[in-house]
């Protein structure tokens, strides 16, 4: 047994942030404080208003008839019996939808080699995945709609399906879309430096094969939409559980041929999203199209089975990675081959390439690597289309590189933490561009490493690990240095010609009583972004937090991109800060006129107009607002009181903001059963200035648990016919409370340059690094056995297979690459 206990999780209860005062705000301002979200008590009292909670007059309900097969041709559809069912209003086929709606098809102007098929909101001729809609029943209740949906008779011609991405790319494979002539959706090769020469000269070459199972977002609230069309005004009002209402406004207008200003999309309370509610789904476009056909409100709420059969899944990758290092542990080159399966369609309108492109280009960006090569092949297959999921591709690149570094460290007998330290980009090297093309303004890799080693009492933990191994207890320690691409600017989607804005706006005004309303272009699914906006606005205006009301999620309100790529506070925060500064100036202009002074001599502090010089109270803010709204006659004629302001922001000096950090995982493997117990998890994150540490830390923890779930439990399993075998929550295992560890958090602060607030995003950091840390920890624990795993999730059976305890590989999933040992040279 260990001679002493290490500092495991010892500092968990201390505040994670040594609260560094933000230089842009005065002491005592709410910025930097862990204030609770004003909306939290409402949600915790059952007063949330999620989409499905709402009911409109004359509203009807939809149930979709979905394909039971993964690949089939529709010979005919008989709707007569369904139409005659009591309570049924209408039965709609793809051909009906086509009378009012344009099809979806991904085109990327900057990547013309990405081929994609046309996708109808409801399939007309052929389906490409199990669960694709083929008809919709409209009825007075969901119950009756489901009853009648069972009566829709589809004459199917089943076609051969292909599910394995490698098989899909092989000659002679069944075609997912015969019109495309190939299942290859995209391929690219990224090369920089003398890769082959580096491998030939290396002291150590390690290789590992990675099988990343497909995973699902599993937001607890499934997708939901209520579309209400008024033919008299040709206007469409949509309430939708979505991350990006402005995108949806544009999409509904384009596909239904409506004027954009007559379409309004409101995303009220949203019960989690994680990427799954970022896309344009056929069933949601169909719901709006049916509202147009009927001229009355139509509700569609996906049930859990439909969620598994239609929500974007993600991260199905098979990869082989090689890493070359010299005798001192310096990484000379990495070479990674990636094959990804994206399902039956490239998801609209963003495409399904994000996962692959980010995985292939972000590899090893934190390290000073001389030579880099990655090869990416993206395959169509008869599965649910893939799309965005927290981290987009980055958990893949992070896991591959971190695992390869551990293997190389092992081969060279260098401590894994030291191996990382020797290869990090150093302070003098920034701004830097990685060999894969990632642009990094400034990172804090070494300080993060130093901090986590201290936090976890690393030397003690290693000592304990080796003592416990003697006693037959197998623990593993895994590190994951991660980068997080946050707040991308127009360079991400603009070149593709997509109507996706990276810019957020803020519209802000004083009410006559001196309180503030603020509309913002990001959206909030519980991250707390709107609370952060309120903190920035209150601090900028010198008013209490409670005096600010922030709204978002309405396409009729302030324009913006919504929630994706950890952009909320980094982009909307800048817009809010700029708008609030303008509003402050506008208010002080009025105050100066009233006081017949200079606006530069005045300040707002705690709802009062004061003299900058001595803090002497001059006038209440409320009085200035009263005058501005009701008594303009007291002002000189040349002063027009303008107590509102608008501002916009998108990153311009940098293409995006790169946050960084490191995680460490500590776990124990029961070598008899293969069960893994998570013991501890640590993260040191650098997301620049923190506006609200309470909310930032909750983002990190939630993200980590999502990554732990992928590593240990989650996988969408399909059989060879493309039937999804894990389409219930009893079969698709999400992380629950009992198996998850307490997580210790610390921060390092490197402000984002070129911005007023120095914020980088934080929403995906946890997920990006957590999976990688588990990969490293599991294989660290298995080192004494001379084996390693390469297949996610690390189920007990995967562990036992690796240990050789059981002879056969897992039986159910056809995808099972062998785990091969690396070469030593």
């Amino acid at each position, binding site marked *: 047994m260990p001679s002493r206990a290490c500092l495991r999780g010892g500092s968990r209860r201390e505040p994670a942030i040594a609260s560094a005062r933000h230089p842009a705000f005065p002491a005592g301002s709410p910025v930097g404080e862990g204030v609770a979200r004003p909306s939290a008590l409402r949600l915790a009292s059952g007063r949330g208003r999620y989409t499905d909670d709402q009911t409109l007059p004359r509203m009807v309900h939809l149930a979709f008839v979905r394909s039971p097969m993964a690949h089939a041709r529709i010979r005919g559809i008989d709707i007569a019996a369904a139409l005659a069912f009591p309570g049924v209003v209408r039965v709609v086929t793809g051909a009906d939808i086509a009378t009012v709606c344009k099809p979806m098809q991904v085109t990327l102007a900057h990547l013309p080699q990405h081929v994609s098929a046309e996708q109808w909101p409801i399939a007309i001729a052929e389906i490409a995945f199990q669960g694709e809609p083929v008809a919709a029943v409209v009825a007075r209740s*969901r*119950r009756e709609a*489901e*009853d009648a949906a*069972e009566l829709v008779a589809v004459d199917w011609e089943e076609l051969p399906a292909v599910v394995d991405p490698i098989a899909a790319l092989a000659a002679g494979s069944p075609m997912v879309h015969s019109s495309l002539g190939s299942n290859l959706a995209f391929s690219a090769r990224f090369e920089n430096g003398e890769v082959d020469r580096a491998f030939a000269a290396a002291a150590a070459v390690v290789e590992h094969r990675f099988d990343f199972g497909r995973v699902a977002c599993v937001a607890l609230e499934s997708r939901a939409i209520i579309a209400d069309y008024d033919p008299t005004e040709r206007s469409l009002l949509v309430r939708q559980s979505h991350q990006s209402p402005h995108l949806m406004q544009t999409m509904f207008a384009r596909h239904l041929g409506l004027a954009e200003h007559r379409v309004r999309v409101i995303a009220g309370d949203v019960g989690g999203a994680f990427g799954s509610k970022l896309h344009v789904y056929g069933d949601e476009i169909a719901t709006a199209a049916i509202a147009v056909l009927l001229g009355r409100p139509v509700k569609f709420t996906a*049930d*859990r*089975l439909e969620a598994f059969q239609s929500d974007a899944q993600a991260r199905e990758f098979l990869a082989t990675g090689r890493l070359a290092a010299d005798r001192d542990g310096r990484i000379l080159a990495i070479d990674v081959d990636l094959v990804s399966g994206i399902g039956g369609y490239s998801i609209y309108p963003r495409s399904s390439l994000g996962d692959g492109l980010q995985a292939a280009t972000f590899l090893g960006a934190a390290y000073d690597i001389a030579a880099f090569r990655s090869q990416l092949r993206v395959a169509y297959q008869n599965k649910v289309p893939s799309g965005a999921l927290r981290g987009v591709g980055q958990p893949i690149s992070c896991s591959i590189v971190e695992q390869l570094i551990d293997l190389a460290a092992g081969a060279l007998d260098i401590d894994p933490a030291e191996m990382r330290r020797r290869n990090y980009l150093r302070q003098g090297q920034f701004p830097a561009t990685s060999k894969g093309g990632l642009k990094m303004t400034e990172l804090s890799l070494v300080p993060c490493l130093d901090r986590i080693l201290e936090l976890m009492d690393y030397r003690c933990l290693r000592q304990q690990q080796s003592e416990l191994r003697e006693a037959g207890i197998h623990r593993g320690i895994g590190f994951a240095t991660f980068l997080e691409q946050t707040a991308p600017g127009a360079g991400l989607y603009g070149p593709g010609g997509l109507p996706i804005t990276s810019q957020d706006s803020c519209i802000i005004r004083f009410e006559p009583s001196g309180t503030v309303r603020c509309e913002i272009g990001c959206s909030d699914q519980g991250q707390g972004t709107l609370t952060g906006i309120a903190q920035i606005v209150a601090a900028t205006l010198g008013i209490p937090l409670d005096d600010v009301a922030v709204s978002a999620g309405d396409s009729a309100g302030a324009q913006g991109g919504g929630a994706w790529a950890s952009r909320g506070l980094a982009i909307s925060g800048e817009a809010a800060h700029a708008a609030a500064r303008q509003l402050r100036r506008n208010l002080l202009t009025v105050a100066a006129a009233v006081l017949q002074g200079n606006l530069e001599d005045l300040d707002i502090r705690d709802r009062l107009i004061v003299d900058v010089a001595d803090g002497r109270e001059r006038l209440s803010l409320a009085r200035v607002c009263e005058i501005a709204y009701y008594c303009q006659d007291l002002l000189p004629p040349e002063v027009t009181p303008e107590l509102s302001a608008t501002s916009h922001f998108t990153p311009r000096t940098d293409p995006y903001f790169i946050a960084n950090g490191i995680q460490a995982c500590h776990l124990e493997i029961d070598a*008899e*059963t*293969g*069960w893994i117990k998570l013991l501890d998890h640590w993260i040191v994150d650098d997301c620049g200035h923190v506006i609200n540490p309470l909310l930032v830390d909750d983002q990190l923890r939630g993200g980590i648990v999502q990554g732990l779930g992928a590593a240990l*439990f989650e996988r969408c*399993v399909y059989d060879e016919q493309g039937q999804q*075998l*894990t389409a*219930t929550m*009893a*079969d698709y*295992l999400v992380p*629950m409370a*009992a*198996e998850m560890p307490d997580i210790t958090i610390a921060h390092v602060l490197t402000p984002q340059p070129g911005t007023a607030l120095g914020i980088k995003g934080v929403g995906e950091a946890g997920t990006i690094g957590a999976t990688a840390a588990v990969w490293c920890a599991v294989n660290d624990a298995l080192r004494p056995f001379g084996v390693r795993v390469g297949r996610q999730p690390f*189920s*007990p*059976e995967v562990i*036992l*297979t690796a240990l050789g*305890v*059981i*002879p*056969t590989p*897992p*039986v*159910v999933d056809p995808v099972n690459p062998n785990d091969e040992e690396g070469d030593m040279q």
Partner: protein
Amino acid sequence: MKAPNFAYLRATDLPGALAALDSYGTGARILAGGQSLMPALNFRLDVPEVLIDINGVAALTGIEIQGDVIRIGALTRHAELEASAVIAAEAPLLAAAVRHVAHPAIRNRGTIGGSLSLADPAAELPACMVALEAELVLASSAGSRTIGAAAFFRGLFETDRRPNEILVEVRVKRQTPNRRHGFAELSRRHGDFAVVGIACQADVADAKVAALRLVVFGSESFPRVASHAAAAAQGRVLSRALRDDIVAALLEDLDPSDNLQGGAATKRQWAQILAGRVVAQITAA
């Protein structure tokens, strides 16, 4: 995921429930706790003609000692088993096992009769009943009959219950001074169905095994009595060596099936490891 159309009948006494069962035959389902039936209905995996709700049948409730047996009414909720002082003292195996059944809200509704009648191969209570050599009482309008638990469970979701019968109570022998128990299961997450589990009772006299009833569940299509393991233990002194022999003999008893959590070979490994752990519990008791 809305349940299909069916009719509903609330029985207020056992004869009424049995009469309804007679008239609807295989189109009827008995609604007890509903914790497995309701998901099947919501998924429309089951489309019954009528549900006969027996929750109002008072005769089916209660846990009481009757001479040398404990009578457990079929409507007894898992939470009641968990909280029962009688169960803790007189059927400690059951008390140990029931904590592994799902989660508190499920245990508050789920019933022992429902669990046994459904015969989910991964459920804890059927295996415990076999290990405890419980007797199950089945009633029909023609009368009632009693059957041993080992004979009751016949296959995957298959029991000896006839369509016109309701499981009304369970009779379990009371704890004796010589009786020891062991229970262990592996589940992917806390409260999940067992991937493999073992419920075990042993009569131990003078440190020797007089009888071992080791029952494997989860991996098998029904609670599997490990007869080879029992034979290996018979009359022998509890020891490390015996444990190894039991574990080795168990292999002859197993007939596991593949599923998402593991293949047959994996499940054999798990069952053997668990058997070793359960025998260790019994040895240490």
